């Protein structure tokens, strides 16, 4: 991924068009720190910080954020369930899962539930900012392990096939290269496309993964009524 990302359109225009970020994190001090960190970026602003998944479902849709950061472990409603419900309400909003532990299995579960990427909580502020901008521009970077899991998931036999959720040849090609350890930049070189194109392919992959697994995994959260007030 290109590191030379100066600014993007909306932050250039005026202070009003800063990237609107919402946050779901149960620990007050941590929540506050995240909010301060996000607000310290010139092109981002934290429009809302919720303590629970239930609160997030109630408050966030009204705030119309562009990106939502969700802690994977929340009391009562888990971060994964919260992601799934938020994605259902705000399909256009990008959701990033925050996790303290680098556990690809959990990350994959979050991606299946509709997350558009994940970040380790110990991420450096500069990287956080880039990631926030990236996820809006295209798909969040995908690790080779997740790419491998995504391929597996789409190849799983006996799954009800949704034609709109099938991977295109190019997307599968990109996933294969990712799983073999190639970076987005190298993939772009190899396939003679731009890095941005690679990212946008990945963005489609994320949404297809979500559609693809909605029938199986996500329906489980959706089948029960959301909590009162949500």
């Amino acid at each position, binding site marked *: 991924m290109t590191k030379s990302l100066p600014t993007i359109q909306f932050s250039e225009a005026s202070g009003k068009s800063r990237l609107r970020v919402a946050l779901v994190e149960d620990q007050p001090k941590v929540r506050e720190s995240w909010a301060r*960190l996000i607000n310290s970026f010139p092109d981002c602003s934290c429009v809302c910080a919720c303590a629970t998944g239930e609160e997030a479902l109630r408050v966030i849709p009204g705030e119309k954020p562009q990106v939502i950061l969700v802690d994977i*472990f929340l009391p009562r409603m*888990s971060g*994964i*369930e919260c992601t799934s419900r938020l994605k259902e309400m705000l399909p256009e909003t990008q959701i990033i899962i925050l996790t303290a*532990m680098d556990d690809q*299995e959990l990350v994959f579960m979050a991606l299946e539930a509709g997350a558009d990427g994940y970040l380790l909580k110990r991420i450096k502020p500069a990287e956080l900012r880039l990631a926030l901008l990236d996820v809006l521009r295209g798909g969040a970077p995908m690790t080779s*392990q997740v790419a491998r*899991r995504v391929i597996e998931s789409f190849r799983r036999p006996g799954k009800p096939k949704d034609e709109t959720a099938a991977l295109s040849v190019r997307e599968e090609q990109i996933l294969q290269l990712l799983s073999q350890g190639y970076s987005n930049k190298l993939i772009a070189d190899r396939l003679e496309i731009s890095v941005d194109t690679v990212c946008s392919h990945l963005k489609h992959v994320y949404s297809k993964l979500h559609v693809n697994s909605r029938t199986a995994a996500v329906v489980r959260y959706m089948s029960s009524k959301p909590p009162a007030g949500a």
Partner: protein
Amino acid sequence: MRPSHFTPGLILSLAAPLGFCLALPSVVNAQTNVRDGLQTNPPPIAIESSTNGLGSWIWASHTTDRQTCRLWRSIEIPATATVTHAELRMTVDNEFVLFLDGRNLGRGGEWNELFDFNLTYLLAPGPHVLAVEAYNDSDYAGLILGMEVDLSDGRRIDIKSDDNWRVVPNTEKHWETATRSSEKWPRATVIGPLGTKPWWLEPHRVNTMELLLPIKVPFWRTGWFQISVLAVCGAAILVSLRLVGQLAIHRRERWLLQKERGRIARDIHDDVGSRLTQLVLHGEVAQSELPPESATRQQIDQICQEAREVLSTMDEILWGLNPKRDTYRDFTSYICGYAQGFLKSTEIQCLFDVAPQTASVVLELPFRRALLMAVKESLNNAVKHSGATEIMLRMACEGQTLAVILSDNGRGFDPARAKPGRNGLANMAQRLEEVGGSCRVTSRPGQGCRTELSVRLRHRLRPRSWRWSAEERSGRAQPSDPLETNYS
């Protein structure tokens, strides 16, 4: 016997014309036939010696009609010799059943004929019991018996019907196998010697009874065999029960160990991990609010960096501890992530070739650790010494063997000149050997270096134990990994 039925005159008057007709071609034979009375069937065997060795007629002290009389005696065949021939001839007026050692040898019901039993094969050295259950229909009653036993050393044992026989009361049970007589059994009464009226001097016929052979007991029906089989079965059952018990205890211990590991990991994670993460976050916030030139900002940055490194080390330890991350997929995923992270800051491009899983194997903590350490060591060597631009990491699991192969395109080295121990190769091999695996490093100058690690794993008996599977089912709805619950 009914005396009125038998008079020589009657026999002669009846038999003479018949015998005459039959024996017409030979006058000599006719004479014999007359002496044999009514006997017209195949000519009798030589009976000159048929009465040799016979004893006296014996019976109980009283004779009644429809009387059952049990006569018993024991005999002893010397242990020093084998029996070459043994023959017993007897008859009873009116019927008898003969037993030897409780075995029914046969029966006879004709008082004027003798019954010949060949006991050669039944008389093994040692004590034996002769028993006769005799039955009198009416009037005269008696038993006559003679037995000759020839021994290999030339001796001969004669047993006759005499007062050495005992009369066994009819109420006695298992008398035909009793080896000792009771004082209550009276001696048999001798009625008279051979030839006593109304009986014969010569029997009318000698019936040779079917040759008697020892009853062959198949080996699986012999007592000792059945007892040994039972004993073996019993022992096997006991051993199995013991093993089952041990297995149960072992399983329980394993489960407890896993649970305990999970708890430790969760504690580390919840307490140390989350607080360290918060620390990094707070540090970053503090840093971002300082002026860029501030020296403190640099220091805080270093602290944060240090804390991040501690966190990744912790991730590694927790990955090892987590009992749920023991599949091939978890392993390959972790190793790939590790390699990518490790090589990120270098010029080396890391490529993967991960074969899909074919067998269900368990990667337990010792295997995971040993392999991870070896992979780390190899990557370290590659970064430090190889000058490679690309490292290929291949992983495959065929059957129970997991192979991890790292090959680089660096400058390689001459294995003969590499000092073992200095480059960590020996260390690596030792780690793998400890878990029953192997490590092979091949390299040639200018040809890169190839490290092959392989271990043999245990098959997963069931997908997961039921305690975990319940969590697995709900795992999607809510991450309920023992490590991660309640964590935020």
